[in-house]
């Protein structure tokens, strides 16, 4: 047994195992934070998150909304001198939260993902009217944006009925399999998210 294995903070090695990127390589140059379009809004900036992963401070990360504000625009990954791919590391962290403690998701973001995935699971494709309605119901933000729907409709941009796929069984099998394969996966967390509403 390599003794260094035991010394490696557990969170960093979990991330490495999940996505093949090693947060331990980060040397805190801050280039990710400096280029991140969401830095101004994140309570914990992306560079700090990398450091907190190294320090194994998972509570700080998971109980904060920052990882959910990531736009996955990949600017940080493109510029990281150490090729750490912070965006990929954040993917891994979000996945960990979804699987282990979905209650920690910010409510609107949870609603959005939930509505989105439910759409795909049900129809195989995203039917935007359904998505918007699903999101609003789940997030409680009933009145936001309502003014725009008629505008969309007027421009022929809203389909009111979903089209269904022939291979919808395929898609549903993928959902089940992915859920089953990664432990308490999406299927479970979706159910969990649903019950929390």
């Amino acid at each position, binding site marked *: 047994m390599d003794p260094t294995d035991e010394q490696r903070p557990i969170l960093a090695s979990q991330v490495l195992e*999940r*996505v*093949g990127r090693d947060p331990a390589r980060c040397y805190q140059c801050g280039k990710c934070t400096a280029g991140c*379009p*969401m830095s*101004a*809004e994140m309570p914990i900036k992306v560079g700090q998150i990398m450091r907190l992963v190294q320090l194994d401070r998972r509570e700080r990360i998971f109980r904060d909304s920052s990882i959910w*504000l990531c*736009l*996955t*625009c*990949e*600017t940080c*990954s*493109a510029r990281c001198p150490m090729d750490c791919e912070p*965006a990929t590391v954040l993917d*891994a962290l*979000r*996945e960990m939260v*979804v699987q282990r403690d979905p209650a920690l998701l910010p409510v*609107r*973001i949870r*609603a*959005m*993902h939930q509505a*989105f*995935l439910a*759409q*795909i699971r049900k129809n*195989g*494709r*995203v*039917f*935007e009217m359904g*998505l918007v309605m699903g*999101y609003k119901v789940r*997030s409680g933000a009933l009145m*936001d944006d309502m003014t*725009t729907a008629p*505008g*969309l409709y007027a*421009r*022929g*941009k809203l*389909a009111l009925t979903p*089209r269904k*796929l022939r*291979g919808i069984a*395929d*898609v549903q*099998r*993928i*959902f089940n*399999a*992915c*859920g089953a*394969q*990664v432990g308490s*996966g*999406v299927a479970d967390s979706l159910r969990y998210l649903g019950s929390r509403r």
Partner: protein
Amino acid sequence: MNIGYYPGCSVHATAREYEESLKAVASVLDLGLDEIPDWSCCGASSAHATNHLLGVALPARNLALAEAEEMTRVLAPCAACYGRLSNARFELGRDQALAREVGVVLRRPFRNSVQVVNVVEILQELLPRISQRTVRPLAGLKVASYYGCLLVRPSKVTGFDDPEAPTSMEQVVDATGAVSLQWNKRTTCCGAGLSLSRLGSVVRLGHAILNDARASGARAVVVACPMCHSNLDFRQAAINRSRQHGAPGRAGELPILYITQLVGLALGIAPSKLGLQRHFVSTRPLLERLLEQQGMEVA
């Protein structure tokens, strides 16, 4: 030339004009689009943000369907779909274990042989034809090309253009006779991922982008992504209303065109066939000026 076609969910709804203009342009340029039969959503971006395997398996289903139809290349006009399909292809190529796992989930043979291309890439290939068939050069139209994130990043996945200093979109713009402007926010994210759930962020980011485009003298912004379009067009009213980040643009509304619409105009396709009437920010003043120059009337 024929190519596989993956429309993606949004072009059938909010981004209808994108598909309309793409199809119109394709037919003028003799590009056949073979739609992948029974395609499904790529999962962007909720799938990969929450479940790594799902984020690969959903796009992989579509690549497998395309492979079954013996397609070698698939065009994904939506930049997000393009990103997810490219990423699935990349991940399956480098991670054997993942490929096996996905193979089990898909329950169909899959060699990962299909290439994924975006709209700019295909238009770039067709540049000679565009120049040749341009009947209504957009001379003098100052345009800011906006790449956003997913066309060029992560570059090892997409392998398309230079992630920090791309030029492909400008090349296409130049072929239409329009003038590409130098500006700074070409690859800065518009915030699409939070479009629904965090309007404030979207407004802040959109503001910076539109202001920089205006400052460069642009009369229009050209995009190749339904989400960029929706954030800059559909949300532009909200962006322009906000005063939190400096004064709103004096020039007021800035039309946001799909690159296919721009090319379509140059090819002489009627604006209505390009869906230009479907925008929230009216394209009419722009069209009027353009056609006036050429001594024509707005259709």
